Structure formats: C-alpha cells, structure tokens
C-alpha cells in the first residue's frame, strides 16, 4: 500500500487518507463568466504527470497539499495548505473587490519556488 507522508502525522498508509481533488483556486463567482464557472465546477485537468492536490488525513481531519506524479504514483512533497493559501480570501462583488480575492492565492500557487523551500519532504 502507498505510504503518504502527512505533514502532521508522518508516514502513514494511504488508507488513512482521502483524496480531495486537484488544487484549483476557487474563482470569485462575481468575476468569472458562466462558462468559466461551469468549467471550474465540472472540468478536470486530470493530468498524467505531476500534479498538486488535496489530501486529508482522516483520523486528524487534517487537510494538506501533495505534489504527486499520477503516472508513477509517486509523492514528492507534502505540505500545509498555508504554504499556498496564506491570507484570508473574500468573494466580493466588483464594487468592493479592492479587498483581497482569490488572485493572491492563485499567485501563490504558481509561485511554487517559494513553496519548495519550506516543505516537508515526502517519500519518493
């Protein structure tokens, strides 16, 4: 059975975890078109290769993020979501969207170099 390195609990059998889907920034519904929203809801990247995804360690209800290769089924890294989701996110309509929106999280996500430095090294 696959071993997953939980950032909180260490190496555990995959059976202790549930998969939570691809990490994809939740768009601000006020800022996207209907088609973009529908695609957020239903369309999957479903990459064969390296992906970023959500996992939850069930006994501790702890969500974290894993970098995994779906073709090799190898997990390279796991880390706390705060590495990507650093600040509060609000979904405000355009008038008062001077406040932070998902954009910052999106930027964080693409800026993966900054992630790499602070991560729990997963097993490979």
């Amino acid at each position, binding site marked *: *059975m696959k071993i997953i390195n939980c950032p909180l609990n260490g190496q555990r059998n995959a059976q202790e975890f549930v998969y939570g889907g691809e990490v994809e920034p939740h768009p601000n519904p006020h800022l996207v078109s209907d088609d973009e929203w529908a695609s957020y*809801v239903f369309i999957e990247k479903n990459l064969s290769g390296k992906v970023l995804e*959500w996992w939850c360690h069930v006994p501790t*209800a702890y*969500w974290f993020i894993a970098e995994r290769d779906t073709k090799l089924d190898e997990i390279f890294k796991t880390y706390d979501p705060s590495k990507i*989701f650093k600040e*509060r996110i609000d979904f*405000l309509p355009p008038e008062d969207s001077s406040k932070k929106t998902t954009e910052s999280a999106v930027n964080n996500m693409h800026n993966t170099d900054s992630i790499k430095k602070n991560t729990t090294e997963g097993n490979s």
Partner: protein
Amino acid sequence: MPSRLPSPAGRFIDRDKQIKFKFEGRSLVGYQGDTIASALLASGHTILSRSFKYHRPRGVISLSSLDANTLMQVGDSPNRFADRIQIQEGLNVSGQNYWGSLSNDRLSFIGKFSKFLPAGFYYKAFYSPRWAWPIWANFIRKVAGLGVLNPNSKHSYYDKEYLFYDVVVVGAGVAGLSAALEAALSGADVLLLDDEQRVGGSLNWGRSEPDENADITKRDELLNQIQQNNNIHLLSSSSVIGWYTDNWLAVVRENRLIKLRAKSIVVATGCWEQPIVFRNNDLPGVMLGSAAQKLINLWGVRPGERAVIATSDDRGYGVALDVMKAGVEVAAVVDLRPEFNECKLSLEVRRKQIPILLGRTPWEAIPNRQGSRVSKLRVAKIVAQGKCAPEIDSFACDLVIMSAGWFPAAPIVRQAGGKIVYDELSGHTKITDLPENVIAAGGIAGHTSLEAAAADGSYAGNVAAKAAGIDNKRVQPPQIQITKESQMHPWPIFDHPKGKEFVDFDEDLQIHDLETALEEGYTHIEHLKRFTTNGMGPSQGRHSSLSAMRLASRYTGLSLDGTGMTTARPPNAQVTLGHLAGRIFEPVRYTAMHHRHLEAGAKMMPAGMWLRPEYYGSDNRRNQMIQEESSNVRNNVGLIDVSTLGGLDIKGPDAAEFLNRMYTFAYLKQPVGKARYVLMTDIAGVIVDDGVACRLSENHFYVTATTGGVESVYRQMLWFNAQWRLKVDITNITASYAGVNIAGPKSRVVLERLCDDVDLTPDGFPYMGVREGHVAGIPARMLRVGFVGELGYELHVPAHLGEALWDVIIEEGKEEKIRPFGVEAQRLLRLEKGHIIISQDTDGLTHPIEADMAWAIARKKPFYVGLKSVSMLEKKILTRKLVGLEIIETEGSIPKECHLVIDGSEITGRITSIGYSSSLEKYVALAYVSPNQSNPGTIVEIRVEEGEIIQARVVELPFYDPDGLRQEI
C-alpha cells in the same frame, strides 16, 4: 509404482507420528510432515487429478505448489494444492473434475476430440442457429470448473497482522539464508520467509555434489548461524502472495494474512524447473527432476521403479544419483545437449555405467494399458531446432524425469518493476530494472552454482541493509559465471505428428493450439495468452509461459525480449477469500440510549454508521405501530432519540461569516438565542445537507447536520477554510452529545417538571429559541424546533448522561402517556408538515429551486458555496418541481415512494415520500411533477404496481397545520 522408502529417507517426515486421512472415501495413512501428494504417492496413488478440458489423468509435475495437476478437494475447500497441504488427522481429501471415478473418468472421451477443439474453438462454434447457443452454453457450463463449493460451509476464523522490518528476505534457500545472515550482521532487523515447511530451499533436497550430504550440511550450518542471531526472525510455511506499492508484502501463513512493510526486500525465490514439451509429457509418472528429488529426500518416497532421466543441464545427473540411491533403476540418462559435459556429477553417473544418450530428447511417452501411467519412453535424436530424426530408442520405464532448465521464479520482482532479460545465446537470464530497495539474489538472479548463489545472497543482504538506511560497507557482487552446466535449453519443444505435447498442463494446451492461434493472428503475447488461455490457469504460466514465448517468438521473428512476458499479477501463492477478508471490521455506532430502544422492542435500522429505531414493536404490526407512535405525538407527547444528528461547533470571530458562506441562508444578523434553518449546496448548486444553526453566543454557533451527511459536511468545512483562512474553529461534536426530541402538545408539561433554570413559557422560550439549562440536573442545550410540527424541544446533553436523560423523561412523562417514536413515525410527521429529507426528497442533481426552497436562499449576501451555480440554474427553464400531493380516494393500490408521475407517455416526476396521515385521514405525498403540473388543484396521474393509474391532487404545503400554530404555542 511409487512406494515409501525405508527409514531414514525423508527429511520432512516424522515416522513416529502416523496420521490417518481419507482419500476418495478410503482410509490412508501417512506420516507427520507428509503433504497430501507425498502421502498419496507413498501409498501407490499416481493419478491425482483430471485435466481441465480433456479429463486426462494427471500426477505430480513439480511438487512446488501452484501445480494444477495436484488440485484437490479438501473437505469444503476446493482447488487445494495437494503438494503443499500437509495431512492432518481426519482430513477428507478427494479428486476433482471427473465423472465416475478419478481412475476411470467417463468424461475422458473428450480428449479424443481434441483435434476438433483447438484453442478458442468456442469462438468459432455453437452460436448458430441462435436458439442453439443457450443449450450449448448450458452444457459447457456443466462441465466447467474443478472443485466444489459447499453452499453450507461456514467460513473459518481468519485474521491479520501487520509487521515491520528493515529487511525482508523472501525465500530461504542458500541465497536467502546467506542474505538474511549478512543483513543481520550489518545491524538490520530481518525477517526471513519461506513457503516450505522447513527452510533451506533446494539445499533440503538438491544434490550439487556426488556427496549426498553436501547440500544439507550447508543448510544446517547456515541455519545454525541464523538461529544464533537475534536480529533474524524466521517464518516457514509462509507464502508471499504479492508485492504491492511501497514494499508492502502480503504473506499467507496458516489462517493469517500478514501485511509486511519492509524498508528493503531481498527476493531469493530461486527458479522454477521447466518441462520438456513432447508427446504425452503429461502422463502420470512423468515429472520434473526436482519433484523426484523432493519425493525421495523430503518425504522418503520412491517415485517409481525404472526411470529415464531427460535433462539439459548437469543437475539432471544429480537427480540420477538420487534416484539410484532410492533404489530406482535408471534405464538411461538422455542429455539434450549434443556433447557430454564433464563435471563431478556427470562423471559419477558415467562411473556407475548408466547409459548416457547425448543430443536426444524424449519423443513420446507411451501409457500403460489402462492409460494411468507411463510404461515406455521413446527417445529420438535432435537434428534441428525442435526436429528429431526418425530413428527411435525405446525404454520400458514407469518414471520419466524431465528438465529443460530453470527459469526465474520472478513474480515478486516483476510486480516490483523488475524485468527478466534473456541472453538467447547462453540461455541465461538476469533481472534488471528493480528499484533500489528490492534486490534479487541467488538462483533467480542467474547464479547457478551454490557457491555463487551463496555469495550473491550475502552481497544482497548487505545491499539491502544499506537500502534500509543502515550504514555498512559493501562487499563486491560475485560475477555471474556462464557455464555449460547452467544452460537453459533454447528449444525443448518437440512437435509430434500426433500431438498431445502439452505446453500448458492446467489448460490442456498443445503446441498445435498455440500455433493455430498464432496463424489466426493472435501473435502479440497478450493476445496469444488470452486467445489460448495459456498461462491463465492455476499455475499462472510457471511451466508454460516460456514455451509460449518461444513459439510466439519463432512465429513473429522477434527475440524473446522483444516478445516479452505477460504481466505478473498477484496472488503468487494460494490465498482464499477468507484470508483476504480476515476478521470483518464493520464499526457500528450506538447512541447512549441504544439499549433502552432494544428493551422497548425497537426494530433497529442502519443510518450511516449508526443504528436507529425504525419503530417500536413487532414486524407484523409495523404500520399500526408507526401510526400509533405518530398520533401519540400529535395528541400527547413522544420522545425520539436524535443523537445521531450531526453536531458541529463553529466558533470564533468569523463564525457567522463562515456559516454565511457554507449555507444558503443569512446568519450575520441571527440573534443570539435563536435557531435558524441551514441548507447547504455544493459548488454545482446541488442540495447536499440541512439542519439548524443555533447561535449560542456572538461567536459560537452550534450547527446540526444530517446523520449520514455530517462527516462529509465537516470535512468540506475544513477544506474550504483551509483556503479561506477565516478566524473560525470547527469541531465535530456529534458523538459528544446525546439528543432527544420531546414533541407533542404535552411536551412542555413534562419538561416543566424536569427543568427549573429555564423559563419555558411561550414568551420566555419561543419557537426557534435556543437556551442552555439543566434537565433533571443534566446540563443541556435546548432547542425549540419543530421538525414534526408540534410543540417540541430538542435536548442535547453530554453523551454519558444520555441514558439517564432518557430514563428520567420516560419516567416523568408516563402520566402524559409519553412513548418513544422511531424514524418512521418521524418521517410521517414531518411529511405532514411538508419538510423535505435530503437524499429522499432530493437526489444527486436537485437544486433549491426545484425543491421549492427558494425561500431558504438569502438574496443579498455576496457569496455562498453554490451561489453562482444556483443563479445559473435559476435562469434555466425549470424541468421539475417538488409539490405536495394528496391521493384521491382509491379502492385499490396505494402508490409507493418512487412510483412515477406520468403525463401521457411522458415521465414527469416521481413520488419521493408518501404516508397515511391519520390526522388528515388521507394519503399525502411529496412528489416531483413538471412545472406545468405544479399548480395547486392540478390532478396528476401516478402509475403504481401492475401499471394501474392512481390520481392525485396537487395541494399547498404543508398538509398539516399550515399556519404553524401547533409548533408555536
């Protein structure tokens, strides 16, 4: 005829312990340590089974397990490998797959038609005319299968265990023993596993020197060192059935499945000896060299009286020495190699003046008159690949020993990613592509001498320790020496004009079958396998894959490597459903009042992981009980256990904001001390859960969720907030609280007797109010909510006080005729009120508009999870709508839930909930109908059982007490 050898022959048997067992109804005796197969051979039984397709008699071939020829019925257990199961007192063994008797199988006539039944024949026949096929299918089905499952057999006790080691060594032959020792000396915690009853591998039975004790002495020396080493744990009779991701090994040991996690693994499983493919090579009495040696050395069985030994390597000469030692006359050694290879063993055989025939092969085995055993072997000269000269030597014999070389026993390494690579010139194999923490050692890695295998084992033990993270210095790997004695014969396949040269014994496949398939275009090795079923039987190609590859490779002109092997899949050894299931862990959750329900005669039903009372009373009075329970709530007071409802504490400065995002309603301005309905949609706008949110303080909400939904609601909440980062804390406190709903016009009276720190007056504690107080001294969160539409209170108390709470309410409510009610009565009561049950009145696509719940959506807030989807769905033309129906007086059938609403030939909806309302004296229902049918007053048609049509009228909801007077008193 085989027979038992005198003492001391037989290293595995204890002649002091006789064991009686039954075979085909007759009593037999064997010794402790005998397998079924060895005990049968010792008592002269040579036919062990009937072949799958042609019902040919079969005896032992390999005695190394997974040998389809030894499959037997052992008690209620079908398809047991008789060469692996040890006899026990009273064991009841019988043959399989025959009609008549094992020695005289009336179905063996099928073999006569084998020419007409080439591989895949069923694809070409039987289907025309179409009506005939079911008849044929029925016949084929009747003759299919081997053993018998007894439908009445109980399943025995199986369990499981998890083990962890630095290094696991699989296979305890010379390589495995050496590897375990070296790894342990390096400081690793080592587990050494072997599937035989005693460790030693081929050292237990092989002969690598003229000195018959050389191998066993080596074994004893190694074992001695191992036993002195505390770092090595040794398990015999333990088969590795599969390698799984991240070095997770499954091991079967007696009735236990061991799941092993190893930092590194040494696979030292040795090799499988390969048969020679010639006519009638499946006759009882024809066996592999290792099988003969095992019979003699392990079980003290003389495998026959007069033998011909056909070999393509030097080990065959060792076999010859062993059989001679056992008193078998050796008629000849037939060496497939063209030249004599001088080695200690062959010289010894020559010294004993045994005729040695070079460059020859068995050409045809001739059965005795009964067809039950070989009586003669015809030997021919090899003139080209697979071709023989016409002149023949004949030898009378009752034993033919064959060996075409040794092939890696590699399923484990192949499951771990390893590949077998062939050197077609030398006939040599090696393993490549293994991950760093899986090491193949010894025979499997191509080491053919004992010394080399031992040295390779030590090296592997060392590497494995290193791979397990134990620092040590590496020794050098021994060089693989390719010598003549190690050659695997390149083409031990001899096509006979009359056929019956078996490639696959399990599936009764002959050379001709594979050739036909190749000619028909099934040339890819995977097609060849599937079309012919070669390698798909119980032995999974141990003895047949290589021949199939050779035949395919000759046909296509590709190399063996280019031809490739079919995928290696678990299990690699016998494992039953019982082993895999083990103890069946099905957790069940009981509420604090569970036993009170049982005592009150409740019929329990599963609800998620919980059990809940469906109703109280006996099966045959179900409906009556449900009606009585519900009318008691309407008229007096009822008590229902609602502990299974999900409970979530949402706390912190952003608690209200968080609820505002998770649920469709508005919570920012919800007053403290008030409860409010919650409805959750997912991002697609589909209704997924509901409940109530109680604001206990500015920053603290207590939210209920459905019994089945709470785990996923909780997980979703955590997931969303892992992204949103609101200042909120979410705790699932479902199990911490036991809960009851005391409902009915007299509920206040009862509660007043028990509670003195909360003002229970209608103004002091109004509808949808929330209070914290004590009931009979028990601290309680009290909610005035009305799911069932009567005056009522939900009381949530610490779980360990739940049973006491129940007891005291039942006691204090006696005067008011309180009685418990179950889930069914509650469903009926809420139906009268038109409240939906998520997942009963909604399905995987229901959005709030269809469910007529637009009222539960706050329109002004900027966000909730399903907002965008719901508003997009709202813009679409509605296709269905949930409405209330009352069934118009019927004499006959009553619709059931999920009977369809029909409009002409169209399905426009379905009933989702229905029940007889004794308050309203009619059947009422919730149903989806098309929007144009949804106006009150519309008559709709429902089709019930047998196609009968029932009429119903659309009515306003709720059915009962539309102004909500009763719940608000």
